[in-house]
C-alpha cells in the first residue's frame, strides 16, 4: 500500500464519489452553523422545498452578533443583529436541528470553541462551517475547513460537499520553544515565513517536537490561523493529549465505542515516506514573541524589531506596505516597543480558551492594566467563562482592571457593539488585522495572550519576556 499522509487517510475515508476530472463528493460528519452565513442557505432550502438531510450532524450556535454585555438576556438592541439571531432560532426549530445552543444557554459561545468543548469534534472527522476559522478543528486530526453559504446549503441538503483534493503541505517546527514564546507566536511566524498565500491550494499538516509539545488549546490556536496562511485546513495528528482532551466530553463516544474509535484514531498519522508537495521547516529556537505591524497577517515581526521601510519589499508588496503603514499610522524605523496602544482585546476563536485566560492571569499576577486603557476579556464560551470564575481567574482579572464579558466573537470582527473607533490602536489576540476589521479606522496588532497582557500593563507593545 502506498504511504499516505494524514490528509490522504481522512479524505479516502470520506469519499462518496470521485469523477475522472477529480471533482469529488465528500461526506461531512459534522456541520457547524452560525447566524451570519446560514440565513440565505436555509432560505434556499425553503424555496426548493428541501429538508436538512442529517439534523443530528448539524450543530448551530449564534456567536458573531451576540452582545457581550451582561444585560443581553433582555434581548439584542441592534435590530439587524437581533433579526439574524432570531432567524437562526427559527431555522433551527423549523428544520429540526437537534443540537442548538441559543444565546442564553451556558454552552453558547464561539462555534469553534463550542464544537471541541462539547465533543462534537473528533479525530478523523470531516468538519465544515460557513466560517473560515473552521480550520481550528484540525487540531484534533479532523479535516476541517470553511465553506461559503451556497456550500452550507449544499451540505444541509446532501450532507456532502463538492470539492477537489488539495495538495499536501508539511509545516514542521523542530526543537523546544524558548520562554515567553507560545502557540500564537508559532502560527504567526509560520505565516510571516510563508506569506498569506503560502498555503493556497494546500492542506497543512503541522508537526515536529514544538507542535507535539503544545496543549490541545495551543494546537487549536495554530490550526485556527492556517487560513491566514492561505490553507483552507490545518491538521495535527492526534495523540494521547488529543484522546485525553476528548474523553468524557458530552458527545464523545463511550464504552465499547470509545475503544473502537481509539483503535482507528491511532492509525491517523502520516506514514513514513508519504509525499508532501511542499515542506516548510522552522526551528522553535528561532521564534520570538511576535506582533503584526501592518494590515495583513503576514506582516509579522519579533517584538524587538522596528517598523519596516516599504521600499525594503518587492513587487506589489511595496505599495501594500505603504498603504498599511499609512492606515496604521506608523513610521518606518520606529521601535515596535515604542508603539502606544489604547485598547486590549483578549478573546476570539484563536485565543478565547481557558488556557489563554490562565496565561493572561499569570502575567497579570500582582500587576494592573495601565490607567486609561480599555481592556476587555471575552471568554470563548459560557463554559470557559464559568470555569475561569470557578478558578478565581475572573475575579483577579477584573481586579486588575479588565472588563469581564459574556461569550461571543465580539471585537475580533466587531459585528456586535464591541468595536474600535477610528484611529484607536488595539493589542488583540484575534486572527485578522485587516483594514477596518475591528471597526472602521481601527488599528489592530495581533499577538499572543501573554503579549496582550504585557501591553495592557505598560500601555505599549511590550516584550513579555521583560515582565516574566
Amino acid at each position, binding site marked *: 500500500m502506498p504511504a499516505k499522509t494524514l490528509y490522504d487517510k481522512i479524505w479516502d475515508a470520506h469519499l462518496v464519489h470521485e469523477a475522472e476530472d477529480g471533482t469529488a463528493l465528500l461526506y461531512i*460528519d459534522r456541520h457547524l452553523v452560525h447566524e*451570519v*452565513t446560514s440565513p*440565505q442557505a436555509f432560505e434556499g432550502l425553503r424555496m426548493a422545498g428541501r429538508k436538512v438531510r442529517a439534523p443530528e450532524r448539524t450543530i448551530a450556535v449564534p456567536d458573531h452578533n451576540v452582545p457581550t454585555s451582561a444585560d443581553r438576556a433582555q434581548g439584542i438592541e441592534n435590530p439587524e443583529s437581533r433579526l439574524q439571531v432570531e432567524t437562526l432560532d427559527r431555522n433551527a426549530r423549523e428544520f429540526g436541528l437537534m443540537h442548538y445552543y441559543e444565546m442564553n444557554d451556558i454552552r453558547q459561545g464561539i462555534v469553534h470553541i463550542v464544537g471541541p468543548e462539547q465533543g462534537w469534534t473528533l479525530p478523523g472527522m470531516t468538519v465544515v462551517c460557513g466560517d473560515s476559522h473552521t480550520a481550528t478543528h484540525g487540531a484534533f486530526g479532523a479535516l476541517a475547513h470553511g*465553506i461559503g453559504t451556497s456550500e452550507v446549503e449544499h451540505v444541509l441538503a446532501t450532507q456532502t460537499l463538492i470539492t477537489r483534493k488539495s495538495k499536501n503541505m508539511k509545516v514542521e517546527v523542530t526543537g523546544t520553544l524558548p520562554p515567553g514564546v507560545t502557540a500564537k507566536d508559532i502560527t504567526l511566524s509560520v505565516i510571516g515565513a510563508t506569506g498569506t498565500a503560502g498555503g493556497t491550494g494546500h492542506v497543512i499538516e503541522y508537526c515536529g517536537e514544538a507542535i507535539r509539545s503544545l496543549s490541545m488549546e495551543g494546537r487549536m490556536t495554530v490550526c485556527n490561523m492556517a487560513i491566514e496562511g*492561505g490553507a483552507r485546513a490545518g491538521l495535527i495528528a492526534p495523540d494521547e493529549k488529543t484522546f485525553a482532551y476528548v474523553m468524557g466530553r458530552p458527545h464523545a463516544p463511550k464504552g465499547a465505542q470509545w475503544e473502537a474509535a481509539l483503535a482507528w484514531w491511532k492509525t491517523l498519522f502520516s506514514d513514513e515516506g508519504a509525499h508532501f508537495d511542499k515542506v516548510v521547516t522552522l526551528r522553535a529556537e528561532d521564534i520570538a514573541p511576535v506582533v503584526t505591524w501592518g494590515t495583513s497577517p503576514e506582516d509579522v515581526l519579533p517584538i524587538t524589531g522596528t517598523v519596516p521601510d516599504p521600499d525594503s519589499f518587492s513587487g506589489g508588496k511595496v505599495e501594500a506596505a505603504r498603504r498599511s503603514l499609512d492606515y496604521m499610522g506608523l513610521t518606518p524605523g520606529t521601535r515596535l516597543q515604542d508603539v502606544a496602544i489604547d485598547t486590549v482585546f483578549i478573546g476570539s476563536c484563536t485565543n478565547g480558551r481557558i488556557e489563554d485566560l490562565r496565561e493572561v492571569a499569570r502575567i497579570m499576577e500582582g500587576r494592573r492594566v495601565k490607567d486609561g486603557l480599555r481592556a476587555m476579556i471575552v471568554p470563548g464560551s459560557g463554559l470557559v467563562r464559568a470555569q475561569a470564575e470557578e478558578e478565581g481567574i475572573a475575579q483577579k482579572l477584573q481586579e486588575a482592571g479588565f472588563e469581564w464579558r459574556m461569550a461571543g466573537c465580539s471585537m475580533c470582527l466587531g459585528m456586535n457593539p464591541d468595536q474600535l473607533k477610528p484611529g484607536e490602536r488595539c493589542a488583540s489576540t484575534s486572527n485578522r488585522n485587516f483594514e477596518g476589521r475591528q471597526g472602521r479606522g481601527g488599528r489592530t496588532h495581533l499577538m499572543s495572550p501573554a503579549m496582550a497582557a504585557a501591553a495592557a500593563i505598560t500601555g505599549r507593545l511590550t516584550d513579555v519576556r521583560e515582565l516574566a
Partner: protein
Amino acid sequence: MQPFTTLTGVAAPLPQVNVDTDMIIPKQYLKTIERTGLGKGLFDEMRYDEEGNERPDFVLNQPAYRNAEVLVAGENFGCGSSREHAPWALLDFGIRCVIAPSFADIFFNNCFKNGILPIVLPQEQVDIVMEDARRGANARVTVDLEAQTITTSDGTVISFEVEPFRKHCLLNGLDDIGLSLQKAAAIDAFEAQAATARPWV
C-alpha cells in the same frame, strides 16, 4: 444561477495585492438575511469617506468604470473570510468576472456558485489586461468561457484555464444541489457503510 457564456464589458483596474474579503464587503453588511442588495457596500471603505461620500479617486467611482463588469486585480484576491457576501456584492454591483494572478481558495470557489468567473493568469498577462483596462470605458474586453479566451480592446487574445466541471456548471447555470441529489443512492450507501465502520461518528 445565471449562466456565464460570453461577456463584453468595461474592465476596472485594481492593482492591489491581498485584497481581502473585509475590504470587498465589511462586517456591517453581513447582517443581512438576503443575498441581494449588497452592491452598495462593495469596497465600502475604499469607495466612501467617513461621511459616506464617494472618494473620487477610487476606480469604481470614476465615470469610466461605474458600469464595469470585469475587475482586474493583484495577487491573492479575496483572502480572508468565507463570506459569500463578497461575490454577492460583486455580482450585485454588476461584476461577473475577476482576473488576477491568484485567488484565495474559498473566495474562488464561492464565485463559481454565483455565476462569477474568476480567471487566474500569469502576472505578465494580468499586466496586459490591466494596461488595457487603464484606457477606460472605450477599452472593452471580451471574455469567452466556451473558448476560454480573453480578448482585449486592441485584439490581443489570451487563453485561460478552467476546471471542466466548473466550466460546465457555469456555462449552463447548473444548481450543484440538484446534481448531488442525483447521487443520493451513493450517499445512502456511504452512510450505511460508515455506520458499520465508524459507528461512533
